[in-house]
């Protein structure tokens, strides 16, 4: 709760900071300080130290799971700030407002990670979405940005409608908005099934799972790259946590009803995401599709609701977000976003190239990186839940994903050409290296992260 409040408050602070501070640098520093404070309180809360108690009337519950995820999200945001907050200045003139919006989003993340009531789920998702619509369109003169923003907005609103209808139907059957509704598995009221499905579709839309993924490539492509990096990682992960939480609390009893549907959605997501990514020429767009395919993998956690799935989802969120933020941060520095733009990258920037390789390996799920273990958790959970065919399909698709991730490696290392890279500070480099270090560390000892769930 403290984290939630603090992030909301710091959002407000950033909002007004523009009146006081007129230098971008100071705004940036302020944002970092606030974020560090948030992380601090967050960890404190995780260790059981709360500064002010608020009775949420059972609408929110900040258990270890949600708190740990919030830590992950906030830390990833910190990494994002460290790497790319300077580039936000280039987007538009209302620099401090961007930070404000991001803090509001963090508040929304906190909510959607810890909701106990469908009402809070709705609010949380909205609080995440609305600032995102704005950030997407924040590059006002750029038609692509405008278009992306409008597309995102219209379809997001549409999916909100679906979600609300689902909530209404569920309410109609149960008479409560609490997610802890225990339904007799033998005779399931059809209202609940219908509502559950509508909720599933809405959530699938939010996490960009096929066949509700269509907005993702366009929006990620059109949005300013800085914000793409943020919404492809932290926000998407939050969506997954919400998805997992919803189905784990509310619909776990009737999983026989929806297991098949989720399986279909997972398969479709993996298939479309990976296959379509293969032929992309722009790295940015490729990353958009790759985020879809990674979504397919994360959905396996929803398919198999067990402890492995939970640990795995946290780990996955961390691994995926860190790697993607890193790659985007480098991408922002590039002039040419196509694969050929990276030709001979290793010559000019050997260090960054090596780090990129680690991130790509992590995304592709090669051992010794966090990406592998998170995928491994997912597969383990899936097989445990009896979906071995799904698991086999998933790993084959993972093999396909190697195809397009390694195209980048090839471009950087084995092809020749000169790459135009904008200014790269040493601090940037060190941050990247430390991110890579974390990726490998988590790849060797995931318990460093997952143990927080238990003690």
């Amino acid at each position: 709760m403290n984290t939630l409040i603090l992030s909301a408050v710091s959002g407000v602070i950033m909002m007004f900071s523009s009146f006081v501070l007129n230098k971008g640098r100071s705004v940036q520093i302020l944002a970092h300080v606030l974020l560090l404070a948030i992380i601090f309180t967050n960890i404190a809360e995780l260790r059981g130290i709360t500064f002010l108690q608020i009775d949420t009337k059972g609408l929110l519950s900040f258990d270890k799971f949600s708190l740990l995820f919030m830590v992950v999200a906030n830390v990833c945001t910190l990494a994002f700030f460290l790497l790319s907050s300077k580039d936000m200045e280039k987007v538009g003139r209302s620099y401090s407002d961007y930070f404000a919006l991001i803090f509001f989003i963090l508040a929304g993340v906190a909510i959607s990670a810890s909701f106990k009531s469908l009402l809070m789920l709705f609010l949380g998702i909205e609080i995440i979405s609305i600032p995102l619509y704005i950030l997407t369109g924040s590059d006002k003169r750029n038609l692509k940005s405008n278009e992306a923003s409008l597309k995102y907005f219209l379809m997001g609103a549409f999916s909100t409608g679906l979600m609300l209808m689902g909530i209404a139907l569920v309410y109609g059957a149960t008479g409560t908005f609490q997610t802890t509704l225990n339904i007799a598995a033998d005779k399931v009221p059809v209202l609940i099934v219908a509502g559950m499905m509508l909720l599933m579709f809405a959530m699938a839309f939010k996490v960009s799972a096929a066949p509700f993924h269509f907005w993702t490539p366009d929006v990620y492509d059109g949005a300013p790259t800085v914000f793409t990096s943020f919404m492809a990682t932290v926000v998407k992960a939050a969506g997954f946590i919400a998805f997992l939480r919803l189905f784990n609390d509310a619909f776990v009893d009737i999983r026989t009803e929806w297991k098949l549907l989720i399986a279909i959605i997972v398969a479709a997501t993996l298939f479309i995401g990976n296959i379509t990514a293969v032929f992309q020429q722009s790295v940015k767009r490729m990353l958009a599709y790759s985020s879809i395919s990674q979504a397919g993998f994360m959905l396996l956690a929803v398919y198999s609701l067990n402890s492995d799935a939970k640990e795995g989802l946290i780990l996955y969120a961390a691994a995926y977000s860190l790697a993607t933020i890193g790659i985007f941060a480098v991408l922002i520095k590039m002039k040419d976003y196509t694969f050929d733009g990276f030709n001979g990258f290793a010559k000019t920037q050997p260090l960054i190239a090596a780090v990129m390789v680690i991130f790509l390996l992590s995304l592709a799920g090669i051992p010794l990186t966090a990406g592998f273990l998170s995928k491994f958790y997912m597969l383990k959970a899936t097989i445990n839940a009896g979906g071995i065919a799904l698991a086999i399909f998933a790993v084959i698709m993972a093999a396909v994903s190697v195809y397009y991730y390694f195209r980048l490696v090839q471009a950087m290392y084995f092809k020749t050409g000169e790459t135009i890279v904008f200014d790269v500070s040493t601090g940037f480099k060190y941050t990247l290296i430390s991110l890579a270090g974390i990726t490998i560390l988590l790849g060797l000892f995931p318990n460093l992260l997952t143990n927080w769930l238990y003690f």
Partner: protein
Amino acid sequence: MIVLFLFLVPLIGGLASFFLKNDTAVRRWALLISVATLALSVAGNFMLPAADALRFSTSWLGSMGSSFSLKLDGLSQLLCLLTALAYPIIFIATWKSNYKKSNNFFGLMLLTQAGLIGVFTATDALLFYFFWELALVPMYFLCSGWGGEKRIPVTFKFFIYTFTASVIMLIGLVYIYFLTPDRSFALESFYAVKIANPTQHWIFWLLFVAFAVKMPVFPFHTWQPDTYEQSPTAATMVLSGLMVKMGLFGVIRWVLPVVPDAAYAWGDLVMSMGIIGIIYASIIAIQQDDLKRLIAYSSIAHMGLMAATLFAETKLGYQGVLVQMFNHGINIIGLWIVVELIERQFGTRRLSELGGLAQKAPGLTALLVIIALANIALPLTNSFVGEFMMFAGIWTSAVTKYNMVFTGLAGVGIILAAVYTLTMIQKIFYGGTNNLTANARDVNSNERVALAVIVLLIVILGVYPQPLLNLSNNFVDGLLSEIKVSYKLVK
């Protein structure tokens, strides 16, 4: 402890050598590391099989029932010895060939060595998979970083091919994990679990595909010739001398004892795949004009024989395979050294463009002829022992009805092997010289050293193979007892 160091020394050495800048320093460092590894593994071979030093285990990923545990038993000792022996030879042989960014090159090489040793010593399925990929990824970078002109697509294909197979294997391993009573990835619990029959069959395939691709067995072999052709020779040596053994090793350690019934049921199919592979690859090898491709196909043929023998499930056969794994590694590295030497000197690998070297380079001729004769398993060379025992193993196999047919067809393989090997020698060395080979020079000192070591090993192990046999003896007994628990061998 020694096993841990056996793995750590090349790992750390490899990582360190990325930071060395001076070329000669890197080469010296790599050689030093590899020699140190060799010393360690030799020391390991002199210890009692029961020595604690040959085991290492510490908790890792406890929540997932996986632990970091290594073990040196007969099988892994044999293969670690081969690995440790191969690297110094490779480094010495390729001492003169210069690489751009040699620090990365040697670093990656040592990393592959670490991965290989890890694969051979791991007694935990998840760890095994880790090392499996750790060996694969640096190899990918080696091949497509320093390879021939078509290297990028070819090695990419190789990587994706093997990676796909290995992730499928991962599924199989995880599935077995859930069948184990104590939910653990440890080898012991894998052996302990009794898997019901229908399940065994497709677990078998899930695992076997990965190993079949790695070996490679007949229909899965197409990545190999291209990769061998395109990758730098030092990497090719590692690939063909050591990495292909990972497949056989995997079958011996992770398939046969875990799903014996399925192995028994599919034995005939796999054996015929292997046998077809022998004849098919040999017939194609006769046609090859590129030296590397020729050797690649001959290697496929040898692998086919070993793969077939694995499923004959006789003690003779297994010991033959183990011995042959070692010998084949030695021999083929020798062949690659010669190829490297010829290519570096004449800039071509086409047999049709070579000829008459015997007049110019008698030393090279003598050495290659011996190695080639070992390649066709002439008596008193090392691989005669292996092949003899493998043939005997197939013939005396009790698990297949067609043992005589298999042996006979495999025997056709050795005739064809003679054909292509002698043709190769003839086209390279005999006849008159042409303007390309007119002023060829003989082997230089370091190549001579490497080749001499190999030839010595060939002859010694050919006359007195007993050390290898003793090394594998107990292990094979244990293996057979593991396999036979599920069905009786009719004797």
